[in-house]
């Protein structure tokens, strides 16, 4: 009788305290926040039950304890589930986000109660298989519910984030089309997230289980799966959360950070509306300012593995290999000005291992000669080369014609001649050549 009353009350809870995405009375949140702590007690007790049951085959006294422990587990489960529902309701979780975990928790609690009842008949020898089966089911359900709860707190990728790739491949994972560096996503959308959201939604901080640092993370969503619903901004939680009234506690970015500008919001809306694509380069109705579309920076490979070698070479040569920006793929700037008096071709040659990552070679005022072009040609991503006030005369300039991303070449105050310059006319990307104070000057800047 009592038992069925409890079960009935439990089942009524999700309706009385239905999570609706709003925060509620602070006492609910206060108590609710003990849920993540409290759940560990019934979990521990439940895991102990099979141990005691099996141990009981050798030492019957253990088996007696099993009944007591199971009873405790049932009581604790009820407590934990009540706290959990208070948290879901009071803490303002979205219904979709917690629904699965909530029902799993309720069913688990009821299963534990059932288990406790079944055990008494099992002890007396009636229904010999029912109890073990239900107990096993309870254990499996515990694992599943616990995992779901963990994903809510720490984010879905918490467990697998640092797993070796072969493990990652085992799990269900969505694959996304690859991201185009000139797409609207890269040029307009990700920058908005970068400057407004990633302080709380990337790296060690994964608020709401949501990471916003890459396309895949964005599309994976957070504790809700519907952060981005392609073609439906109104159904996308992310869009809802950035368009709430400014005094709404759920507005993103949260904690009083300035809300997104109408312009940014318009971009996000249009992007989701038109398919949330990682590669499309236009959005109907949105004008891409021509200025901003100019040359997205070609990306270089990942050099993070070379960090210690980079530090080493910096200190041996006295140079700097500074990153262009926080994005590793923007490449490195080679700065030699601190040691320009002694920096020579031989030193430049030592930088060969880093050649593919250097996008800007600042060699002005150094002692490098025309022989350096062979090494420079290996820096395949070079966008700018500074050679002002060096002893070069340009006789090997044609070696640079393989640099397909080169836009800027500074030869001021060198001995470079007009004929030498003809050798680099095939370089179509080159936008600025500076030849101030050289035999080749004046050359109209192309």
């Amino acid at each position: 009788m009592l038992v069925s009353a409890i079960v009935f009350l439990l089942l009524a809870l999700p309706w009385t305290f239905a999570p609706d995405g709003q925060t509620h009375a602070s006492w609910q949140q206060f108590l609710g926040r003990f849920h993540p702590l409290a759940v560990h007690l019934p979990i521990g007790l439940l895991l102990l039950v099979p141990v005691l049951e099996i141990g009981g085959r050798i030492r019957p006294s253990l088996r007696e304890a099993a009944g007591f422990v199971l009873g405790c587990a049932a009581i604790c489960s009820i407590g934990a589930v009540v706290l959990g529902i208070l948290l879901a309701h009071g803490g303002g979780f979205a219904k979709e986000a917690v629904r699965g975990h909530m029902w799993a928790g309720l069913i688990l609690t009821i299963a534990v109660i059932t288990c406790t009842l079944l055990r008494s008949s099992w002890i007396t020898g009636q229904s010999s298989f029912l109890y073990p089966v239900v107990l096993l089911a309870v254990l499996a359900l515990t694992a599943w519910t616990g995992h779901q709860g963990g994903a809510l707190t720490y984010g879905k990728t918490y467990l697998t984030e640092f797993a070796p790739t072969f493990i990652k491949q085992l799990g269900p994972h969505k694959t996304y089309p690859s991201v185009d560096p000139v797409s609207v996503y890269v040029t307009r959308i990700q920058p908005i997230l970068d400057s407004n959201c990633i302080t709380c939604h990337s790296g060690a901080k994964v608020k709401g289980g949501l990471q916003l640092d890459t396309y895949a993370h964005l599309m994976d969503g957070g504790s809700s799966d519907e952060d981005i619903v392609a073609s439906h901004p109104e159904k996308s939680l992310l869009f809802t959360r950035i368009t709430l009234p400014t005094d709404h506690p759920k507005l993103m970015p949260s904690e009083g950070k300035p809300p997104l500008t109408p312009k940014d919001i318009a971009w996000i809306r249009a992007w989701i509306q038109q398919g949330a694509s990682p590669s499309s380069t236009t959005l109907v109705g949105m004008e891409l300012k021509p200025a901003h579309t100019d040359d997205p920076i070609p990306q270089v490979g990942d050099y993070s593995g070379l960090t210690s070698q980079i530090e080493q070479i910096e200190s041996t040569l006295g140079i700097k290999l500074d990153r262009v920006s926080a994005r590793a793929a923007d490449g490195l700037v080679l700065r030699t000005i601190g040691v320009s008096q002694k920096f020579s071709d031989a030193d430049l040659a030592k930088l060969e291992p880093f050649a593919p990552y250097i996008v800007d070679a600042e060699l002005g005022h150094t002692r490098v000669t025309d022989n350096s072009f062979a090494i420079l040609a290996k820096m395949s991503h070079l966008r700018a080369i500074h050679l002002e006030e060096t002893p070069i005369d340009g006789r090997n300039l044609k070696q640079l014609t393989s640099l397909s991303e080169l836009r800027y070449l500074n030869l001021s105050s060198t001995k470079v001649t007009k004929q030498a310059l003809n050798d680099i006319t095939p370089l179509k990307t080159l936008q600025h050549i500076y030849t101030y104070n050289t035999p080749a000057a004046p050359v109209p800047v192309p």
Partner: protein
Amino acid sequence: MKQHPLCTDIEHGPTILDLPIDSGLKHEWAELQTRRHFLGRAGKVMGWAALASLGSGEALMGLARESQQRSAPLPSPETLRLPNFAPKAQRAIYLFMSGGPPQMDLFDYKPKLAALFDTDMPDSVRGAQRLTGMSSGQSRFPIAPSHWGFKQYGKQGAWISDLLPYTGKMADDIAIIRSTNTDAINHEPAIMLMNTGNMNTGKPCLGSWLSYGLGSMNNNLPTFMVMMTKKNEEENNQPTSSRLWSSGFLSSEHAGVSLRSAGDPVLYLNNPQGVDSAVRRKMLDAVSEINRQTYEELGDPETHSRIAQYEMAYRMQTSVPELTDLSKEPKTTWDLYGPEARVPGTFAYNCLMARRMAERGVRFTQIYKRGWDVHTHAVGLLPMLCGETDRGAYALVTDLKQRGLLDDTLVVWSGEFGRTVYSQGGITKEDYGRDHHPRCFTTWMAGGGTKPGITFGETDDFSYNVVKDSVPVRDFNATILHCLGIDHNKLTFKAQGLDQKLTGTTPAKVVDELLL
């Protein structure tokens, strides 16, 4: 704090540094703690230093290393993850026209005013505008149209005063902003606001923020250098002080190093007679060692700055003479900058030096030119001030451009506020004066990813209120940071319980229209 084994008065229990609290708080504590501890422990420190040189140095070094590994790292370009995005500008040069140049005499052309000479300012324009104590007592506010003519320059057809013929020549290289405005009406708060984003002293200035956020490009020269232009006896010279290049609550490594306008550019940089470089090096090594022990004892991060400063000074012994040696400048340089550039301390000389610093990887150079505070006798003073600065600024931009450095060098020209359209004191056909005016003033930027050849923002017919595209100081600074690859909301430092930033707490925005 680790107790040295030789120290007798053992302290018991953990200190603040051992507590699991925010490293920023520990840092602040360490700084405060220092002063109190200093006197009490100074004697002992000296004792240790002596001991260190007597042979236990290795052991002390070991301790220092250990504690360095333990202490939480201070924020650095590494932890700040800067630049936030690939920058257009690697460095910036800031020409600061201290005193407040009159916008309507230089850039903000108001032809309709001519007909209103000596008539009263309409009250509707002035509104409830606050006045300075210097003109609030005036019974009337007679309009003073500019004494000079204006011409259109460049493809953009920018209106520029006849006072600035050289600036006119580079009209297509600069972005003129006529709608800059500030909240401060007096020099000190206004100049602080421009430089630090806050009217009160104690905050780091732009150059220090850049040094802190982006670090150095050349270890042999300071990241942030300041040059004062020589005083001109006839000008109304408002004082400037080292507060303007102070690093505020940032480590003093990030403060600006100012070059003197006469004599040795940096005092006491040369070795005294009989001390050669090797001796100096040995001395510095010993001093650093003592400093390292002091750090170990007191945990004061300023000790690190001091060590860094000594080392910088040592390297500057060779780098500064090279920097200031103009003997290899080609004739074209002197043709461009004019003969004045040969005289140290002139604005033209400073501009030439700024170009040389840019070439040598100085991140931020600021040149101050005082005297723009033309409360009286504007007609006499402005030709002099413009004559002194016009050519230098033009030469700098043009020189950077021809050498291919304007692509990644941002040049900024600005004062701390504008001046009133009405005359302060009386007005005659021949002369007038102008009071401070915060509601609008004209600035310009060039290079470093800014859009060349545009004029941005508009003021009303009296050059009194901004009517279009207002650029408050915080937006101006946010835009400068943007050129250097910095999101102004992300360059922060925790002090006094707040994530402090250059643009302050009022939301600021980057002025996209000024950017390429």
